[in-house]
């Protein structure tokens, strides 16, 4: 798996658009204190005031500044997204790769756990647990991570199973490399595009789940969350406040989720040569298709023989422009 992700993203309008959306949210989250004079838990004393210079998006039903809460809500969403992406994908890589490398009973145990967890409807189980515990932010992150790793672990395992038979891994082993070294220096770099796509999916699911649980009203009441703002705002659709309360909140949440999806789709398409996006721009697409498949396979053989993956990579990219 040798794909230059930076190249892929730079040449994909959709991925760039996704990054732009995420950058906007990140900007709001990082500079939140500079963009508003209020604190998110401050009560202004005026409820349902319409947008004005004092309150850009007005105030909500308890008199808190909506714009301020939106900014700090971005922090919660991004914090949950980043932490879950890191935690869950680390678990996926570690459990998936170690299962493939160690094998035996250890592998069978973990794959059984993965099977069981994949067949469980995650959100429903999360709602059940959250209904009892009303989890705080760290607990919420741990919970979402605990339910997010199995899918990734299965993918990582299958990738590592083929990878570990490659020559360069055998070579490393004859030089006395232990499993940890092989995992860190040979396997993780090789599957990095898969890890990137996994992290984006984990992040997306985490943002959705945090918002969803808050929307149902089962997360810690102290968390400032877009989901909870929508939960509160939905009760007042008969007033005009939805225009500056419900709608902007939903739009920001959607921007975050859509941005992550766009980025994820780009990476996934880059990894699947069958879905080569630029092929319709060529006149003779079938011939190109064959060329690029041959080159791809040729590249792999080449790689195994000489351990110079860069050569295969260049041929692959030139032939298909994928």
């Amino acid at each position, binding site marked *: 798996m040798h794909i230059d992700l930076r190249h892929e993203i730079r040449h994909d309008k*959709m991925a760039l658009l996704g990054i732009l959306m995420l950058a906007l949210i990140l900007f709001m989250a990082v500079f939140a204190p500079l963009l508003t004079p209020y604190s998110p838990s401050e009560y202004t004393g005026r409820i349902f005031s319409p947008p004005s210079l004092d309150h850009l998006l007005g105030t909500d039903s308890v008199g808190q500044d909506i714009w301020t809460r939106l900014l700090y809500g971005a922090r919660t969403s991004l914090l949950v997204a980043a932490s879950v992406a890191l935690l869950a994908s680390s678990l996926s890589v570690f459990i998936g790769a170690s299962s493939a490398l160690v094998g035996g009973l250890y592998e069978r145990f973990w794959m*059984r756990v993965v*099977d*069981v*967890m994949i*067949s*469980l*409807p*995650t*959100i*429903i*189980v999360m*709602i*059940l*647990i959250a*209904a*009892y515990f009303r989890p705080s932010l760290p607990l919420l992150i741990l919970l979402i991570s605990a339910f997010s790793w199995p899918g990734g672990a299965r993918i990582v395992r299958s990738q590592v199973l083929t990878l570990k038979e490659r020559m360069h891994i055998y070579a490393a082993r004859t030089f006395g490399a232990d499993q940890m070294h092989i995992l860190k220096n040979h396997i993780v770099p090789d599957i990095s595009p898969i890890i990137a796509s996994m992290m984006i999916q984990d992040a997306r699911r985490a943002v*959705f789940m945090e*918002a*969803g649980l808050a*929307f*149902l*009203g*089962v997360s810690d009441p102290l968390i400032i969350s877009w989901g909870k703002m*929508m939960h509160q705002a*939905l009760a007042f*659709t*008969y007033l005009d406040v*939805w225009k500056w309360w*419900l*709608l902007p909140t*939903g739009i920001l*949440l*959607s921007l975050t*989720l*859509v941005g992550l*999806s*766009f980025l994820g*789709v780009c990476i996934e398409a880059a990894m699947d040569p*069958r*879905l080569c996006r630029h*092929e*319709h721009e060529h006149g003779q697409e*079938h011939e190109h*298709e064959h060329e690029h498949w041959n080159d791809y396979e040729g590249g792999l053989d080449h790689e195994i023989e000489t351990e110079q993956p860069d050569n295969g990579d260049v041929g692959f990219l030139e032939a298909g422009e994928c």
Partner: protein
Amino acid sequence: MQNEGSRRGGSALSYLIALLTIFALNFILPRMMPGDPLQAIYGDEALVAMTPQMEAHLIELFALDKSWSEQMVAYVLALLQGNLGFSYYYKDEVSSVIMGALPWTLLLVGLSLLVATAMGVILGIESGYRRGERIDRGLLAGLMLLGGLPDFFLGIVLLLIFGVSLNIFPLSGAITPYSGLEGFPLVVDIARHLALPLTALVLVDLGGIFLLTRNTVVTILKEGFMLTARAKGCSELCLRYSHAGRNALLPVTTATGLRIPQLITGALFIEIIFSYPGLGLMLRTALDARDYPLIQGILLLATVTVLTANLFVDRIYQRLDPRVRYAH
């Protein structure tokens, strides 16, 4: 064949373990809460309304004065008898409360499963067949954008546009209360109430099935048998549906099983937004009132449905694709 048998047995075992995990969670969670287990099982508010006889009856029912293992046995026995407990909020057995709301959810989920699958497959085939043309790119971008939106926001947007601003469709409920409608007007009334939630759920669900069908069709178009079919003189329609479309059905079937959990959770959110009187709205009420037996009952039903659907699709898949049956 033996290998296949063990694989099948393996997947069934996974579902069984998953089911037992859920039972265990339902059993352990309330007992992990601080304080009186009866209070945790039934919630604070329930205890206020409880008479001493009822309390004694419940303690006996759950064997709460006995050891954990005996409690477990009592819990499993009650479940096997279909006894999900008593909802203090609705003042009725949980199972009968759920039965009251279930038809509306089934109507919503079932219809959107049908509509979304049909629309997704047809649009996917047409779009994949015209890959790269304007209509394909438009559909792809549009549906991916829709699929990227959180389902509850899509519902809210529909509600705000068609319910609040334009006032075309009713804002909440499944039928107009006290209207005394019968026969055909009743059906129209139900359809009018169903229109927005159904649209929201279909739009959320459509993207995935569309993308899958389209991508499968794109890869199938390059197969040799498509060329043969064209050489035989098959019509375009026959090429598209009998050859490309039929082969694209397999992944769609698998994906249908995977979509059911999403549809069910999607329906929970959509029902809350449109105050549609199904299980989702009931769950929201139960969560707000901390009516734990009802929460457990609804979520248990949802989980069992999802597990059954997945198991079913696993089996169907092996029947549909001879390659899977003979490959092992």
